[in-house]
């Protein structure tokens, strides 16, 4: 039966109908990590809506006929598919259920006109061997039940972007096996946001958390439009072992008309650190909690609110170092051989060259 699932009620059995992103949010919230509240419109809803609207067969036929090497064919099929989904409209039981869930979320957050983020979560997304990140749409700062329903439809339609269609066919995912779940989540208005890796991406050192941070919404960091501040935190010692402060020239901010827009950063904020030491450590601690839960290195998105609270927006397995084959041993086990090596190459074996402070 098609359903709307609140993140805090998440159970692992729900994962297949939530898609990677929503399942991950559900998991994080279920283990008590601070995630903005919200609900998921499951992939079953998508399938049922298509079936009720008589679109299932039409869409299958459209996609089956696509020649992935012919952009014109992809574009034509995509446009037709998106139009079909758009035609579903905002009426019916599902639309009512979404509006009701949104109203409940508004009530919970104490804001009758609560801004929400609406994110696609395709059921083939975030598989360990493929990153679909960024392939599907996210809508920020959506308000009002009707608008939420409309954006859910837009997320569904985004399964059929030209890029998405071609990508899925090329990667060999079944043409009809992909479905779309949609997350509706309280919108934060972060002072600072960014990403964090629970290892040092430069050398794979798992004892470190690497944080990229910049002003405003995290999109500036995720998209690479800004060179963020970078911090390295030792997980065990809780010490900030490196800081690189960059010139942060732009940020995404909420501007008039509920639009999230790229704007220049005031000159006096550009080259100052966007996080205090305590905030850096709070972000690192949060990333570490996600890693401890998943028992493997994570790549997280986080946001810092004006209140000083750090929230987790996403957590997924780190893919670059985790996929790299690891040698069975990095250290020489035989003590004498190892001591001789240490003495001969003291740059690897003495306090020299590392740890000696730099102002």
């Amino acid at each position, binding site marked *: 039966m098609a359903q709307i699932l609140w993140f805090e009620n998440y159970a692992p059995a729900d994962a297949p109908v939530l898609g990677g992103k929503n399942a991950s949010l559900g998991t994080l919230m279920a283990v008590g990590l601070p995630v903005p509240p919200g609900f998921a419109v499951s992939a079953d809803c998508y399938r049922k809506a298509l079936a009720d609207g008589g679109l299932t067969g039409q869409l299958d036929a459209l996609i089956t006929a696509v020649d992935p090497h012919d952009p014109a064919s992809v574009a034509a099929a995509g446009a037709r598919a998106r139009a079909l989904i758009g035609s579903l409209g905002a009426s019916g039981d599902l639309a009512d259920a979404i509006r009701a869930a949104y109203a409940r979320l508004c009530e919970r957050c104490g804001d009758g006109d609560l801004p929400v983020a609406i994110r696609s979560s395709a059921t083939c997304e975030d598989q360990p061997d493929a990153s679909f990140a960024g392939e599907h749409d996210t809508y920020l700062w959506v308000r009002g039940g009707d608008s939420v329903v409309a954006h859910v439809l837009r997320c569904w339609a985004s399964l059929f972007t030209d890029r998405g269609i071609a990508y899925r066919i090329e990667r060999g995912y079944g043409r009809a096996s992909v479905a779309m779940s949609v997350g509706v989540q309280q919108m934060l208005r972060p002072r600072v946001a960014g990403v964090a890796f629970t290892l040092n991406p430069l050398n794979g050192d798992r004892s470190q958390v690497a944080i990229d941070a910049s002003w405003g919404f995290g999109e500036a960091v995720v998209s690479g439009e800004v060179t963020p501040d970078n911090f390295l935190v030792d997980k*065990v010692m809780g010490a900030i*072992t490196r800081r690189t402060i960059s010139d942060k020239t732009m940020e995404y901010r909420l501007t008039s008309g509920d639009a999230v827009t790229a704007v220049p950063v005031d000159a006096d904020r550009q080259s100052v650190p966007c996080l205090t030491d305590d905030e850096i450590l709070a972000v690192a601690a949060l990333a570490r909690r996600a890693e401890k839960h998943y028992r493997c290195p994570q790549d997280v998105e986080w946001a810092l609110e004006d209140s000083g609270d750090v929230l987790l927006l996403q957590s997924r397995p780190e893919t670059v170092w985790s996929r790299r084959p690891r040698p069975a041993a990095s*250290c020489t086990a035989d*003590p004498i051989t190892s001591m001789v090596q*240490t003495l001969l190459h003291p740059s690897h074996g003495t306090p020299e060259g*590392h740890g000696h402070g730099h102002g």
Partner: protein
Amino acid sequence: MADRFPSPFEMPTPPGAEGWKDLYAYSTVFSEDRREYEESAFWFMDGVHTPEVVPPWDATIMEYAIIALSQYNTRHYIIPPALGVDLRYLNGYMYLSPVGVTDPKEIEARVPEFAERAGYYFANWDRLYAAWMPKVRALIDELEAISFSPLPHREEMAVLTEGRGTGSALDLFTTYHRLVDLLLKLWHYHFEFLNLGYVAYLDFFGCCQQLFPSIPDQAIAKMVAGIQVDLFQPDEELKKLAQLAVELGLADRFAGSAPARSAAEVLDGLRGDPQGDKWLAAWEEAKQPWFNFSAGSGFYHSDRVWLENLDIPLGFLRTYIAKVQRGETLERPMEAVIAERDRIVAEYTDLIDSDEDRATFGAKLGLARTVFPYVENHNFYVEHWAHSVVWRKMRDLGRLFAEAGFFADPDDVFLLSRHEVTEVLFDLYHGWAVGVPSRGPKYWPREMARRNGIMNALRQWSPPPALGVPPEVITEPFTVMLWGITSDSVRQWLGGAQADGGLSGFAASPGVAEGPARVIMSADGIGELRDGEVLVAPLTAPSWAPVFGKIAATVTDVGGIMSHAAIVCREYGLPAVTGTAFGTKTIKTGQRLRVDGNAGTVTIID
């Protein structure tokens, strides 16, 4: 920025210090005979052990220490890439030069020998180390048994009746030579384990860095922390005595402080009533051996030893009594340190990917912990206890000379080189045997005045931190570990202090603290420290332990992450930045400092 330090041959003799070289062994001063080698080498001043001018007899200890270190590298354990550490005096200050093996073939040839010799020690460490303590205790007993008796007016009758066939002067000669030889033996013992201990520790260090390339140094150091070491025992004894004083209701009897109220007065005031006598008995018991504790590095005869300067431990004791009265705990946070150590080890272990690496990490940590007690513990027995006895016995000899009219101040004996002492003994013997005046009483007062003048002139000189040509990278492990001299510090010395007045050094003990600075140049000044101040010193000695209970952080000019300031601060959970080179020159007492022991930086806030 200059690319080399001044040549030792460019250094002028300070005015009034002409002739200083004659006070030191001919083989330990820079000379034209070895100029080419000496000018091409890199020399750094040993600020860790000898921040001040080394008096001629005190040079004995430094020479024996450095030669024993060298001998173990070169001739005992055949450390593949390292020979010994060369030593020279320049204007009375000691400079050292680590000597490496440069030919790769030679290094390779040394490896199997090192494997056999060091391997044996590591494999049998516990048994061999168990023998060390009795050996060094027996040596200290021998030192304690030394006694220099004045030459008798007549040899006693027993010399004849027993047919001994020798006289008292021979005993004096033999006793002095035994003292000097025991000192050399002491330093042999000192390095029997230390070099290998450092190698094992460095190996663990290297393994940590391979597994976690960005790991902070202090994380590694903390993994071997939390062991009970005798080095802290003198301090522990004072804490027990403070507790006892409060329990016996004697706290008020310790009021006042030197010089207004000396230790002798305080102790006299306790005598005669049951509570006071009970406390005094505990005090007497603590004195041996724990008050054989130097307020300095132990390498100078002028370093004040608690046993002979009871005002020092009594001053600390008063601080502790006040703490007990305020209800504060005197315990070092040992359990917390151990719990933190275990947490750190568990978390890093958990982050290691492969079982094989986890096993290697565990084994290397195990060895590092096996060797670490020696690395920590030897210091009390050698530099504190044994040295205290050596200085005491030499002072006895000085008194014997003074009583024979050779010079007025018994401490002038330290203005003689160890060989000259034999000559002076001969002069004494000569006069005594022949029955005529010795030359000494006419000769030495004049000569001692000259020598004291030279010493004072040398003390006015500011020794450069280094001489000669720095190597591209500093690799000799002991230089890095113990002296804290790295390629970075060499660069800093060449470039001077940072433009903004900030300082950087070793991130020796984690944490960040702010507080007003108190610049302390020697042990005599530590009484000036107030609660919450940042201690800024050329270096700290283990005997300063009591002040670590009240300061906010420590900054030193010299020393690495294994220097005593670093070790003690980690035990006390205080931030420390060591080896800043210019701390005491840049910082003024009263300035507000921010000490970042995580990053190794010191910022002057105002």
